[in-house]
């Protein structure tokens, strides 16, 4: 059935029905906008860990890393490990998001810099979510097609996944996403490690692997002359990628809820840091699978097919169904959150701001559901336009950093103003375009140029233009410096927050 044995199909169907029920069960708790978009800030550490892990981990990453490792050796791991050295900093960054008490990152830009930046960020955020949803669906569609030997086409797989996460995500919002992420996170771990013993067995164990694959493919530092389409991964490359990650991570639009949906700051930082730490471990398994595929499939035209082909050829009946379920889990656990986060951006920072400032929570939640559909439709359009997963990933790495420069400026420097924030974004964007598209620089050199240029522009322009309104800054920094649990201090200062 669909290129699958009946037991594989039954395993897959059972999982999908179960996840829909779990999502709909969580949906009954949704009463307000705060519930729908932020889960009422009610989640504990275990849920937050699995939510951060599930949201941050998708099948296309396994596909990309396995593909890159197939081409570059173990050094291909850096296509996902680029955030490895940034991970400990999540412990420091996460409380910022919980403490700001906003629903979206666009709320931050509005409070700190004004509506022009809020509006621009909202547009960018919606584009970002569509881009990411497209990437994930495309990557998983490819793999599902490879696993079923083409019986299920890329686009059939994409449509099935889309209908599934829409079925519970639209009703249940973020609570449904977080509850299902807990189950799906377990499946993602299965996805990562299930294939490893089978590929190792197929190549004759670790000894066989070393006998069949050149020694240099086991180095964490990739070859100096990589094939076309891949980067020269050196210590300098890794350093610049980490710096770029630390600049940009704060501007990824879903991180406001990844850091803010927990009960307290501790839940946010434990979830964000250690959810991602689990992902780093899973990445090792993806890379190992890719290296083993060098021995298994020496002449693959598309390295991104390696993971799917190994699954199809090596997994026994029953386990292939679990692998497919896990792949779908990894996509749905991210797409459901991104869909809700995109809707939150549109409803809170666009629709409510410019069209209907006073309406019931039910109205906003219903508008959010409709918008969520459009966010996903945008993702499907993107998936149709971009043919390589790596191409999309590279594109998004740079874009988040432009807004990250403005974000950090607003957090750490009181003198940073709206003009300075705009200058940081525009100058870094222009430098990125020149260095990547006109001058053809390598990725780390692009990062170095636009990060230094962006921060310099932000500082200079802020100093040359008037300071921002003192009351506005006092209100912002009072919120930022008031720990969660001490909201009475905000009330005493006459500061209202949307959702404590």
């Amino acid at each position, binding site marked *: 059935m669909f290129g699958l044995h009946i037991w594989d199909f039954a395993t897959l169907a059972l999982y999908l029905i179960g996840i829909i029920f779990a999502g709909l069960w969580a949906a009954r708790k949704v009463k307000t906008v705060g519930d729908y978009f932020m889960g009422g800030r009610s989640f504990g550490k275990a849920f937050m860990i699995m939510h951060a892990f599930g949201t941050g981990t998708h099948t296309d990453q396994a596909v990309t890393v396995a593909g890159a490792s197939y081409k570059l050796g173990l050094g291909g791991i850096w296509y996902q490990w680029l955030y490895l050295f940034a991970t*400990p900093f999540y412990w*420091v960054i996460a409380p910022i998001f919980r403490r700001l008490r906003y629903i979206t990152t666009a709320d931050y830009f509005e409070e700190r810099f004004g509506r022009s930046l809020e509006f621009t960020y909202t547009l960018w955020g919606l584009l970002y979510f569509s881009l990411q949803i497209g990437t994930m669906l495309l990557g998983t569609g490819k793999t599902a097609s490879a696993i079923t030997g083409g019986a299920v086409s890329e686009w059939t797989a994409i449509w099935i996944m889309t209908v599934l996460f829409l079925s519970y995500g639209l009703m249940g919002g973020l609570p449904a996403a977080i509850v299902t992420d807990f189950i799906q996170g377990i499946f993602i771990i299965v996805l990562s490690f299930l294939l490893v013993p089978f590929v190792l067995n197929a190549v004759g164990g670790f000894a066989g692997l070393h006998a069949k694959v050149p020694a240099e493919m086991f180095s*964490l530092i990739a070859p100096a002359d990589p094939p076309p389409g891949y980067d020269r991964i050196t210590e300098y490359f890794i350093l610049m990628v980490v710096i770029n990650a630390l600049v940009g991570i704060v501007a990824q639009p879903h991180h406001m809820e990844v850091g803010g949906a927990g009960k307290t700051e501790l839940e946010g*930082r434990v979830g964000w840091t250690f959810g991602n730490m689990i992902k780093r471990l899973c990445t*090792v398994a993806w890379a190992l699978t890719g290296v083993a595929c060098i021995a298994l499939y020496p002449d693959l035209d598309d390295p991104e097919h390696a993971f799917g082909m190994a699954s199809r050829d090596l997994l026994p009946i029953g386990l292939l169904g679990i692998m497919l379920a896990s792949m779908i889990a990894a996509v749905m656990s991210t797409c459901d959150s991104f869909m809700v986060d995109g809707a939150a951006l549109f409803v809170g920072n666009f629709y409510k701001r410019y069209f209907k400032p006073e309406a019931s929570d039910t109205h906003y939640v219903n508008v959010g559901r409709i918008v969520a559909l459009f966010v996903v439709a945008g993702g499907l359009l993107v998936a149709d336009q971009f043919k390589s997963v790596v191409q999309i990933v590279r594109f998004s790495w740079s874009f988040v950093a432009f807004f990250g420069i403005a974000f950090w400026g607003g957090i750490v420097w009181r*003198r940073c103003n709206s003009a300075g924030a705009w200058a940081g974004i525009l100058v870094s964007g222009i430098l990125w375009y020149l260095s990547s598209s006109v001058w053809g620089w390598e990725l780390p050199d692009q990062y170095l140029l636009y990060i230094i240029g962006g921060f310099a522009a932000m500082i200079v322009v802020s100093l040359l233009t008037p300071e921002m309104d003192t009351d506005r800054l006092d209100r912002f920094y009072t919120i930022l410096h008031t720990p969660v649990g001490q909201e009475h201090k905000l009330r005493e200062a006459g500061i209202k927050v949307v959702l404590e």
Partner: protein
Amino acid sequence: MFDLEIRKPNKETVVGFIVAWICVILVMLLTMFIAQIGA
């Protein structure tokens, strides 16, 4: 000119940050160990 809004980190921040770095180092060592098995 650069009156930065950075406060002294509390104990939870410092300890958690160190623990997270230890985890990173352990993940890297584990990866290098796995890469050498059977070599």
